[in-house]
């Protein structure tokens, strides 16, 4: 296993996850990009050894093609995902002039809304008993 690629993976993971923990959608998009690259490098570095490209007919030992196939689609999907996040950022900016993810208030309201509408056990039972 290549030592320098391993260290590089660590740096990319650290940088990517730091960016993901931001509020700015642009930085989150950057994080998606960096982290995606980190994963790709990790799979290639950990899944295969450096050798000749896996094309039949080439001279020498051929490297494992499977990680490459996995990563190839991952690269393209990463691009689509990044575009999606950027579209989100663009949309946020166009509507609110702000590209930060606000806290989702709905998440907090769930508890409050539910407890206000639900009846307590005893209440329901009183209703059952009354004719």
């Amino acid at each position, binding site marked *: 296993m290549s030592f320098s690629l391993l260290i590089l993976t660590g740096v990319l993971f650290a940088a990517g996850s730091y960016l993901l923990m931001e509020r700015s959608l642009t930085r989150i998009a950057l994080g998606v990009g960096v982290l995606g690259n980190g994963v790709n490098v990790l799979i290639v570095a950990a899944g295969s050894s450096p050798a000749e*490209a896996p*094309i039949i007919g080439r001279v020498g030992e051929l490297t494992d093609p499977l990680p490459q196939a996995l990563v*190839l*689609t991952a*690269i*393209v999907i990463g691009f*689509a995902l990044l*575009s999606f996040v*950027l*579209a989100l950022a*663009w949309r946020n*900016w*166009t509507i609110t*002039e702000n590209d930060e993810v606000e806290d989702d208030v709905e998440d907090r309201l769930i508890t409050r809304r539910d407890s206000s509408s639900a009846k307590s056990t005893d209440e329901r039972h009183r209703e059952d008993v009354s004719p």
Partner: protein
Amino acid sequence: MTSPEHPKDVSNSGGARNPSDIVRSAIFDELVDRWLSKVAVLVAIYVTFRGHNAPGGGFAGGLIVGGVFVLQYLTGREPHVRFRTILHPTRLLGFGLLLALGTTVTPLFVGATPLESHIWKLDVPLIGEVKIVSSMFFDLGVFFVVVAVVLMILLSLGTRQSTVFGDEDIA
């Protein structure tokens, strides 16, 4: 109040100038639009088909065409203007998906497992033996999907007034 509606407001508000302003130049224009784009599309198709035996394939080929669109866009041309009259990107997307899906399920009708490759060998005069593998059509489907995806993303984020995907229904 600054509204990001007009390009000049955007540049005033501290954002970068519209990229199309940056690199627009007549020579570049001519080069890209006349020659590079056509050559690049040919290259892309070549890369797609040779992918079965050498580096390349549908993903790479599709991305090359995507790159051509980007260049066209940067030179200020709207890449879709001529294109969309022939094939709307969404339709291209569906076409690519159907092509790939069709290649996936067709072997079922001839009693094979899904995606099982069939290899035709043709004797073409002068060139010699040409091998055609059924999975090339799958790769072609991938190619169209990637082209359509790049085009859709580019047109959505790239146009101020989104004319292509205006108010018609897409999904």
